[in-house]
């Protein structure tokens, strides 16, 4: 129960308790195994289900129960939501949304087919993906809402019951190069949305809107003056060595911060106890590092921001002055564990694109550990836990006077946008890893009238543990303990495990692969227990829900995104897609485009066991 403070004004109190109620309702919904109310399952963003009907003993009996095609090709990232017996499905551009009744998925309950400015697809950097939806449970006056983002920069609130547009507004202006691919995030009565388009001069920002009206509550930038960064008075007071005030300007040359990037298009987590939301800002711009001397704060930063005010309590910059495009927007997973000193701590764990998995104290931002995602990471020798700074190896830097060979990870990172999972019972994080390195060959081509083009040719290929002759062995799946820093098990995969993982109390970890398998492994030892070949490759993560006593596992298929860019756009030049086309040149031998979801259960048990369901019946 929320204690009413006598000192607060009546209005503020009323407001606060309303907010708390909506929030509690979403927390409550997320605790039920019948629901999957947000991309990461719950505010801990741990993709962990307590359901045990499907477990390591019987998982090999998993069979398809039903399927649904979105009708859209291109890459399908993220995961569908399930709330109170309805599944909400999103698609890449043109950003369709479908609601299906789980009791009878025969007829589409509702569908939203937005009209969008087609120019948006030209602006999007890496395929036309979308990462998912958000749900707000309603308050009696305003109906439950589904929030979606559109590639053309709009955020839309749909009536969750009918699919009608409740409100719609422009968050990002594609006329200035800003698109939206991120899944919105609901906390209390706010819907929180990031931004994309760093390379196009977009200065990254995060915005909170009132779920009911779309009214902007606050907006916080990743670069620039402190007021616009929204730094709390005690910002980084626990870790002043991270840097505190004035740095959003001082760590840039001139006014370069105005086009400095630091967008956020990844995932969020929230802790109702600290009232902070956690997320990462992305890479600095422009891409060519020589054009932006300085640390480029606060790009590449893990943020903890107060959700009501947007004010930042802490910010830890992982990769000062990025040279590799290690955009820092990856998943933040929250856990409560006992640290090495025996102290119970509230933690945040973040597998970064730069090949380091960071664990911070999420109450104050203390850096607790920074381990390599794989021992082949080489741009950094180690991270100094006292200063928080990476100790770089200049051999694997990307300078204009240096041919970088075998830089690990590649620009795609050892971990990208995949939403991973954490099993609190086992204290294990299950990580989908890219095992890809790159050569970086800079060049400077003069032209006439003093003009020139500075660039680099990127070639990507499997990391040292993969098969470099045959361009396979581009991925790994690993079980990680953030306290000991040890990997309990790891397995190689043919391609990157791009989409992320699902953990269940049935001693299982599920994930999809680019070549089109959904797989289940034993959480304790990584043994492969079950797999199924899907119509197309996977770049999203599996989810699970229980409906009418049956546990289901669902997953998007639909290859694409950055790793699938060559396949989707029919590119053959190996250096295209910043080198991704070369790295994944064998992908098309295994899968082709597609788009939809598949739903599995033990023995395929499901709504259509009733043969009459969905049948035409004449009167």
């Amino acid at each position: 129960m929320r204690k009413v403070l006598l000192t607060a004004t009546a209005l503020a109190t009323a407001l606060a308790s309303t907010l708390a109620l909506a929030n509690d309702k979403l927390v409550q919904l997320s605790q039920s195994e019948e629901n999957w109310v947000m991309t990461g399952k719950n505010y801990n963003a741990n993709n962990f289900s307590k359901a045990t009907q499907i477990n390591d003993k019987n998982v090999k009996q998993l069979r398809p129960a039903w399927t649904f095609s979105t009708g859209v090709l291109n890459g399908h990232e993220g995961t569908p939501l399930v709330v109170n017996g309805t599944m909400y499905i999103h698609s890449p551009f043109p950003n369709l949304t479908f609601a299906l009744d789980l009791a009878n998925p025969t007829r589409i309950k509702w569908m939203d087919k937005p009209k969008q400015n087609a120019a948006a697809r030209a602006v999007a950097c890496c395929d036309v993906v979308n990462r998912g939806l958000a749900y707000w449970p309603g308050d009696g006056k305003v109906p439950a809402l589904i929030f979606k983002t559109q590639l053309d920069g709009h955020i839309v609130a749909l009536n969750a019951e009918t699919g009608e547009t409740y409100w719609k507004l422009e968050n990002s202006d594609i006329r200035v190069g800003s698109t939206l691919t991120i899944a919105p995030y609901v906390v209390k009565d706010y819907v929180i949305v990031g931004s994309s388009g760093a390379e196009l001069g977009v200065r990254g920002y995060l915005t909170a809107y009132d779920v009911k009206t779309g009214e902007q509550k606050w907006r916080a930038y990743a670069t620039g003056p402190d007021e616009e960064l929204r730094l709390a008075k005690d910002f980084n007071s626990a870790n002043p060595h991270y840097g505190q005030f004035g740095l959003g300007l001082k760590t840039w040359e001139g006014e370069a911060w105005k086009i400095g990037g630091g967008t956020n298009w990844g995932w969020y987590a929230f802790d109702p106890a600290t009232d902070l939301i956690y997320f990462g800002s992305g890479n600095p711009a422009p891409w060519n590092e020589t054009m932006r001397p300085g640390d480029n704060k606060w790009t590449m930063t893990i943020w903890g921001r107060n959700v009501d005010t947007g004010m930042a309590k802490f910010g830890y910059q992982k990769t000062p002055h990025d040279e590799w495009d290690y955009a820092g927007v990856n998943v933040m997973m929250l856990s409560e564990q006992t640290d090495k000193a025996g102290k119970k701590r509230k933690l945040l764990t973040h597998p970064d694109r730069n090949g380091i998995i960071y664990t911070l104290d999420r109450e104050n931002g203390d850096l607790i550990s920074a381990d390599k995602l794989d021992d082949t990471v080489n741009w950094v020798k180690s991270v100094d836990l006292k200063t928080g700074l990476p100790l770089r190896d200049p051999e694997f830097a990307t300078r204009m006077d240096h041919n970088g060979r075998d830089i690990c990870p590649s620009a795609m990172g050892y971990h990208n946008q995949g939403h991973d999972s954490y099993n609190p019972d086992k204290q294990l994080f299950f990580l989908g890893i890219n095992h890809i390195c790159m050569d970086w060959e800079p060049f400077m081509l003069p032209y006439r009238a003093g003009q020139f083009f500075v660039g680099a040719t990127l070639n990507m290929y499997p990391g040292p543990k993969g098969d470099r002759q045959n361009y396979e062995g581009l991925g790994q799946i690993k079980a990680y303990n953030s306290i000991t820093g040890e990997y309990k098990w790891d397995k190689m995969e043919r391609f990157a495990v791009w989409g992320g993982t699902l953990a269940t109390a049935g001693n299982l970890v599920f994930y999809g692969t680019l070549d089109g398998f959904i797989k289940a492994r034993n959480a304790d030892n990584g043994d492969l227990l079950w797999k199924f070949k899907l119509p197309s490759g996977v770049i999203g993560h599996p989810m699970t829900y229980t409906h009418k006593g049956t546990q289901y596992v669902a997953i998007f298929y639909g290859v694409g995104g950055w790793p699938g860019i060559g396949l989707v756009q029919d590119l053959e030049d190996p250096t295209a897609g910043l080198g991704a086309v070369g790295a994944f040149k064998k992908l098309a031998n295994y899968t082709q485009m597609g788009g939809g979801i598949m739903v599995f259960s033990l023995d395929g048990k499901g709504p259509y066991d009733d043969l009459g369901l969905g049948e035409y019946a004449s009167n």
Partner: protein
Amino acid sequence: MFLRVFQGFSRAGRCAGALALAFAALPAVAASDTLRICASEIEAPYSYKDGSGFENRIAEIVATQMGRKADFVWSPRAAIYLVRDGLDKNECDVVMGLDTGDERVLTTRPYYRAGYVFVTRADRELSIDTWNDPRLKQMNSIAMGYASSAEAMLKKIGKYEDNANYVYSLTDFKSRRNQYIRVDPARMVNEVAQGKADLAIAFAPEVARYVKASTVPLKMQRVPADDTGTGDPIAFQFDQSMAVRKNDRALLDALNAALAAAAPQIQKVLSDEGIPVVPAAS
């Protein structure tokens, strides 16, 4: 149709070996009765696949003067790649229009000299004589090419960041990560004519044709010298040369002789194009 967002090699050269194939070279033996000219198909108004580029015409004049047949070795890629992917690979022997003294090559004596200009609508009667002009500070849509002297100057006077978004719009926000993207000079001029750009700053030869053809009267005014007094002064005038490989001195001498003899004809091409040439540097 999927838009190719990441373009490594050109749309036409869809092959890992695109470098070699990108140049549709005629028989490999370079007979001395032909002049193999490296030429971009997409570099209007300098060079265009139908031969309408003004430097295509100059190349023909020079070849004729040498008593050779002009043999254009076309690349579907931008001209910026011609030296690396054409000349240095012996696919062709001459590159038109490099800055005199380019260290990668031997350059001929300049066959013209030109400078950057402001392109404005005649009806705006805008005359800007100094980079400190307060009107420049108020402008938010200045069309220009990436990595040009114009861009360097805008950085110097603190106008670059506020204007960057507008410039990105001129290339439809195509990602410039690791790929060369050119701002189409015809579009720059059109933006000025339509009043969408306050002005364009461009190398005169690159825009002269479009300024001349514009139905809306436009004006080209030579940009003032860098008068900011800070840093190294930014150059706005450039001598233009033909170029050959460093070991090809005989061809260089032959070109120099032909350029001198054909000067009046070259002058006519430049003047037909509408390029305000400036006197050669002494």
